[in-house]
């Protein structure tokens, strides 16, 4: 119950975003509303008096000409704003009120009524709303009331569904279930808790619905089922204009313009409000990939496979996420990169792979894989076959829409130009090597049909089939169960032993790293604190207090302690000592 205040008022915490579209929409709508008030008072004469000046073109007296009965078309178009707006408001009111009442009633109803009622609403929403409108028009006969009722009723299912959905989602929140448990009656829950919480989305939908109602009512008037002569709204005027379109093409322009302006204004407001209510706002920033900024390192280490010198990754806000780190990997070496979340280890791995998000910029003095300059190269084949990649969450790294086989064999087929059959056979072998049962069957399945462990082993198989020089594994076991973890780790070791593939292994789990790696880099806040051999790490032979804290925080299977330690270390003044 403590968080009631924050949950019930999510809108207040965000600052409201006044987009240009929203402002333009409000300006347009205000102009139309003002016209609707003023024009009928000021322009009723020219708009409705019959004069002998029929079908005139543009003139100083009649800017948009006159109609068949010598009435000023511009004046009529402006005066029509009143009826059009009133009718749209009426229709929207019907949709919202009836929709909210029906939606709430459905939500309050016992389950055996609620489920079929929801199905019915669902089925009704799927129909073109015009069908309902025509149904009502058929019952009531053409007329302005008909148009309002018809479009209003056609909008009810949408609001009923929104209300029922909102009620269902709001009612799952703690304070509502508490209120229900306390025996607060249903209608009180609705007025006290649900309606205030649903007001924002309902209002947003009502503004969109107003825009739609306006265009649909006008469309009914336009085809002759809505407003009847001598009354006139935008749709009726457009209909009259269309009838004499060859004699007086100008006659359709003014009502069209009014319809466009009003419709656009209403729609801009609806869209603007919807965007302002959507918390996922905010624009992205594209940083570009800054290649080599300084000459290559003067001292290339000839024995290194991967060479990273002075690598920095900068966020769009200008923060350095990786602060000029340097390391190298020898052929066949397994290098672990450990650190807590946000230490920059994944950023390091992804900048080596060249797969960082667009808004991050990468700089380095040297970023080189076996003679291939990773900062400038565009050699897709060398990159794709030279670096194998295994990512963190196997559940999201496979394309859900494609079968396993085509995804796994893609590098072989695209870059190594293997024929499909050959690539398939090789892949089946590689999968088999990774202890995947029924590899042929698996390749015909979609990713969601495989378990996480299987997916990750498939990913390892796929990234090794092209015999890469370096395998980058970015937290490959984090998303997996502990038992599956051990199995996946064994596969990495197997690849390293059998193919001599060098591995850059990223993990936050120092225990996992010390099992697998020859050398370990400890990262903290974008810097490397220390480099250790696995033996040192096992022996607890570490110098830096942060590494000691990390080690102490790792529970061991063999020792029993009363409580688990956490990595407690204040870095502020000690970072200097290691660099």
């Amino acid at each position, binding site marked *: 119950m403590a968080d009631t205040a924050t949950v019930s008022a999510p809108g207040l915490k965000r600052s409201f975003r006044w987009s240009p579209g929203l402002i333009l929409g409000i300006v347009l709508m205000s102009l139309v509303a003002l016209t609707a008030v003023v024009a009928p008072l000021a322009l009723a004469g020219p708009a409705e008096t019959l004069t002998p000046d029929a079908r005139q073109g543009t003139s100083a007296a009649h800017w948009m000409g006159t109609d068949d009965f010598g009435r000023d078309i511009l004046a009529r178009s402006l005066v029509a704003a009143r009826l059009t707006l009133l009718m749209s408001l009426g229709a929207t009111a019907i949709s919202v009120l009836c929709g909210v009442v029906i939606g709430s009633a459905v939500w309050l109803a016992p389950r055996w009524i609620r489920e079929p009622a929801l199905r019915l609403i669902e089925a009704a929403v799927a129909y073109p709303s*015009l069908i309902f409108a025509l149904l009502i028009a058929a019952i009531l006969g053409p007329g302005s009331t008909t148009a309002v009722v018809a479009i209003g009723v056609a909008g009810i299912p949408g609001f009923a569904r929104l209300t029922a959905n909102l009620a269902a989602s709001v009612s799952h929140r703690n304070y509502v279930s508490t209120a229900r448990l306390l025996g607060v009656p249903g209608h009180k829950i609705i007025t006290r808790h649900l309606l205030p919480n649903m007001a924002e989305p309902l209002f947003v939908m009502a503004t969109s619905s107003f825009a739609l109602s306006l265009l649909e009512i006008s469309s009914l008037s336009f085809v002759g089922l809505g407003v009847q002569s001598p009354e006139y709204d935008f749709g009726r005027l457009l209909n009259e204009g269309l009838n004499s379109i060859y004699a007086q093409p100008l006659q359709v322009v003014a009502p069209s313009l009014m319809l466009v302006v009003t419709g656009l204004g209403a729609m801009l407001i609806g869209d603007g409000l919807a965007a302002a209510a959507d918390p996922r706002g905010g624009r992205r920033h594209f940083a570009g990939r800054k290649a080599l900024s300084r000459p290559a390192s003067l001292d290339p280490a000839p024995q290194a496979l991967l060479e990273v010198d002075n690598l920095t990754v900068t966020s769009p806000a200008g923060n350095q996420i990786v602060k000029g780190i340097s390391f190298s990997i020898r052929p066949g070496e397994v290098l672990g990169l450990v650190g807590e979340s946000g230490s920059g280890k994944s950023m390091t791995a992804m900048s080596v792979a060249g797969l960082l998000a667009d808004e991050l910029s990468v700089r380095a003095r040297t970023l080189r894989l076996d003679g291939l300059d990773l900062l400038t190269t565009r050699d897709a084949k060398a990159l794709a076959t030279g670096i194998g990649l295994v990512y963190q969450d196997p559940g999201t790294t496979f394309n859900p829409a494609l079968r396993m086989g085509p995804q796994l064999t893609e590098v072989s087929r695209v870059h190594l130009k293997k024929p499909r059959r050959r690539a398939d056979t090789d892949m089946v072998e590689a999968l088999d090597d990774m202890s995947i049962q029924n590899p042929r069957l698996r390749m015909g399945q979609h990713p969601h049909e495989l378990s996480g462990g299987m997916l990750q082993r498939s990913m390892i198989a796929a990234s090794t089939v092209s015999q890469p020089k370096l395998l980058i594994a970015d937290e490959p076991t984090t998303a997996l169960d502990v038992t599956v973890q051990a199995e996946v780790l064994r596969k990495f070791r197997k690849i390293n032993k059998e193919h001599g593939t060098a591995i850059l292994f990223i993990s936050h789990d120092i225990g996992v790293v010390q099992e697998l790696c020859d050398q370990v880099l400890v990262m903290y806040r974008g810097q490397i604190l220390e480099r250790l051999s696995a033996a040192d790490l096992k022996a607890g032979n570490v110098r830096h207090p942060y590494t000691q804290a990390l080690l102490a925080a790792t529970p061991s299977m063999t020792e029993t302690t009363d409580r688990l330690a956490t990595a407690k270390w204040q870095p502020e003044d000690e970072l200097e000592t290691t660099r």
Partner: protein
Amino acid sequence: MTVTANTAAGPGPQAPQAGVSRRPGSHWAGFALRRAGGLLLSLVMLIVLTFMIVPLIPGDPAQAIAGTDASPETVAQLRGQMGLDDPLPVRFADYVAGLAQLDLGNSFRFNDAVGGIIATKLPYTAQLAAMAIILVLAIAVPVGMAVGILTRGGRRRWLDLAFGNVAGFLASLPGYVTGTLLIVLFSILWRVLPAGGADSLQALILPTVALGIGPACAVARVVRQETATVLEQDFMRTARGRRLPPLRLYLRHALPNLLTSTLTLTGLILASLLGGAIIIETVFNYPGLGNEIVQAIIYRDYPLIQGIILVVGLIATVLNLLVDLVLGIIDPRTLGAKSHG
């Protein structure tokens, strides 16, 4: 006729089912059962709704149909002819029995079988709607994807802005206004295209554009948004890690993941296109079901109104089902999901 974004949750990063594979057949069986139930419900709803048109007419339906100045004998005769003297359940049973024999009754106005009238008019409307939906997909998918790709990760802010505004404006134009203005421009001022009829393929151009351009822009905006979302998914990074050529990257990896949401949306739009076609037909004096039902309502030709609403509603239902089927083939996971949410 606008459709806002986020209609479909999209393929997104939903948690995969961790379990070992389920039999694919069970998906389809459950799907078929659910959809059959939905279809039946829709059919019942349509039949009840169309039946209720006549009983719900305020006052005496026979009087309303015959007109206020009709003689009492005429009204009484009409009442007998329509079976209005029978109790409501009997009339409903008659109505359903007629429908069961595919008999939609006779039009008052033409004194002709409603089924026959609909059969001659339906192909025109179907042709118009089909051409419009082709136009929508042909514009929305390539344009939306191209803009999504070109503006990914915050590139080319100007293009993003220009596209959003132009597409938003076009999407806000109602088809009948677009249609009227198209006639003024292409048929009256420049005299290059016919303003009405359905005699030639040329005559279809303006109605198709008027009907399709708004939805095309609405869908293009959604496709652009979905493209941006898909491009940021982990599996796209995996594909980029394979350093695929751009065409392969976008067409093979991104496009199938856009299709789910795009087709869902197109399915929704298809239904609203049917509605739009009814109005557009009036603009272009196009001899389809739309023109027919508007005339039928004005002349109070109830059997014809009921017949057209039944047929159009049924078509909308079947189209929704087809879209779901296609979705199931493209992305099997949607079969396991409910039809919404």
